[in-house]
């Protein structure tokens, strides 16, 4: 296994930080991601990472602490999406697309300004693509605290959220405040992706939010078991990616190394492919039923 654990892997301080941060982010992303995938809000989840990045770019330009930009921007974006109509199946696509367009536009402005104003080359790419190896250890406490807040919120609204994700009518009939719970979830999602975007970049943020949960949900019948599997898959992909990325410095002759995002995403995709095959082997209801479920019968429920 010598080739896998190259010299200095575990004694390397950067790697240790990365492993811890990766662990936290993988857990939070998986838990929030299971609900995201379930509610068909993958686009919103991804869009929010880009919105968060725009916030981060703005904060960078304004000289404010990045985490305020990432999380604050994400929350604003979530609010805007909700106002336009991300909760109803019909309006979801446009709401997400419009907010993403505006945010990306602003992001373009901020990044361009910071790229041309400061002497830091590669700042654009750094913010856009991020890297877990460049995490400031001083941000760890904030990341940990916000992660706990996210997990706690999910724990509190879990059952009403699950019921309303399953069927708005059933939830409304039980007295669940569907809109409030939905908005709360969007804000929680925004905080979660803001956190992960700042420490691991927007690509990995989306990958860990969607991939492991989608893989887990393909093969389990029970929701919480699925969430647990998603967490395991997320941690697995993250740690494997970190190790391989570190090792790649030694593997590739030019000593450049490939970015962590590349490896983690590769593992996430491999996991998904694997579980997709498993599901197809097991068989199940034909896919046509899914098209029906995406066109929910919408009565005048609020």
């Amino acid at each position: 296994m010598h080739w896998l654990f190259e010299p200095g892997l575990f004694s390397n301080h950067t790697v240790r930080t990365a492993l811890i941060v990766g662990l936290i982010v993988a857990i939070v992303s998986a838990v929030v991601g299971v609900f995201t995938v379930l509610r068909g809000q993958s686009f919103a989840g991804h869009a929010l990472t880009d919105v968060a990045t725009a916030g981060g770019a703005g904060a960078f330009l304004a000289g404010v602490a990045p985490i305020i930009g990432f999380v604050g921007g994400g929350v604003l974006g979530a609010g805007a999406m909700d106002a336009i109509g991300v909760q109803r199946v019909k309006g979801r696509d446009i709401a997400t697309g419009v907010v993403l367009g505006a945010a990306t536009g602003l992001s373009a402005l901020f990044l361009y300004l910071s790229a041309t104003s400061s002497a830091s080359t590669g700042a654009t790419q750094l913010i856009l693509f991020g890297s877990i190896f460049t995490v400031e250890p001083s941000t760890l406490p904030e990341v940990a605290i916000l992660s706990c807040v996210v997990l706690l919120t999910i724990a509190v609204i879990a059952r009403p959220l699950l019921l309303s994700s399953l069927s708005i009518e059933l939830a409304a009939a039980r007295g669940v405040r569907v809109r409030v719970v939905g908005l709360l979830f969007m804000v929680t999602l925004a905080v979660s992706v803001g956190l992960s975007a700042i420490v691991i970049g927007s690509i990995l943020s989306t990958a860990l939010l969607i991939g492991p949960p989608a893989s887990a949900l393909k093969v389990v019948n029970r929701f919480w078991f699925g969430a647990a599997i998603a967490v395991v898959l997320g941690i697995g992909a993250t740690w494997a990616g970190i190790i391989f990325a570190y090792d790649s410095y030694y593997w590739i002759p030019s000593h450049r190394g490939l970015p962590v995002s590349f490896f983690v995403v590769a593992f996430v995709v491999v996991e998904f492919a694997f579980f997709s095959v498993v599901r197809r082997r097991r068989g199940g209801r034909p896919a046509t039923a899914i098209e029906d479920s995406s066109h929910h019968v919408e009565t005048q429920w609020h």
Partner: protein
Amino acid sequence: MFSSFMTNAWLSGTIVAMLAGVVGFFVVLRAASFAAHAIPNGAFAGAAGANLVGLNPLFGLISFAIVAALSIGATSRRSRSDVATALSLVLMLALGAAFLTLSTEYEPAINALLFGEILGVSSSQLLPVFLLAVLCVAVILVLYRPLVFTSVAPDLAAAKGVNATLVEISFLLVLALATALTVPIVGALLTFSLMIGPPAAARLLSKHPARALTLSITLALATVWASIACSYEFNLPIGFFVGTIGAVLYLCARVSHAQRAVRSFA
């Protein structure tokens, strides 16, 4: 801003805007915004990769856009399409990040691809861009009825024997080509907003499909022309203006729509 060296910008911008107005109309109709966002980002990765191996970036743009479209289309019938789109997107972005790391590409060139560049299309490329745009619109015209049918009433269309998968894949390929043509001008990050903001606004302002389509093209033209002008005036990336103007158009349309609804009950 109307000097000769800007002629290319106005011409290519006009072509691309009309194309985006048409294709974007169906993106909004089919709720394919995620695909419209994912494909150009994937295309960007292709440009980075093409650069790495010394090929023309446009080739990379188109080929990766097509790959993205196919991978989104292939899986969309079997599982949730938004999951497939998300994973295709991150895979391509990760590849793009890897390509960028391995290459020594000049940063302004990357910025141009990401945020758009007024002079993104050179004179020699004008004719191919025009022809490819015409091709896209032609395919859309051919597919018009099945496209609308499968978007609006998929079950009925299936019952009538329309091959939904064929229509979907064809549409995604047109979308891929359209975005690849738009990226050099508007930028990979904001191409999609040109295909969402103006068409969504158009749909709010008119229920009639032909009128909405015309309005979509008009608004897209307005957006691009304004963006070129502003980009020239303020020396800022064109993508920024496209994104913000598109969003503003949508918001105005939304307000107007709400006011009309209120007035009709007064």
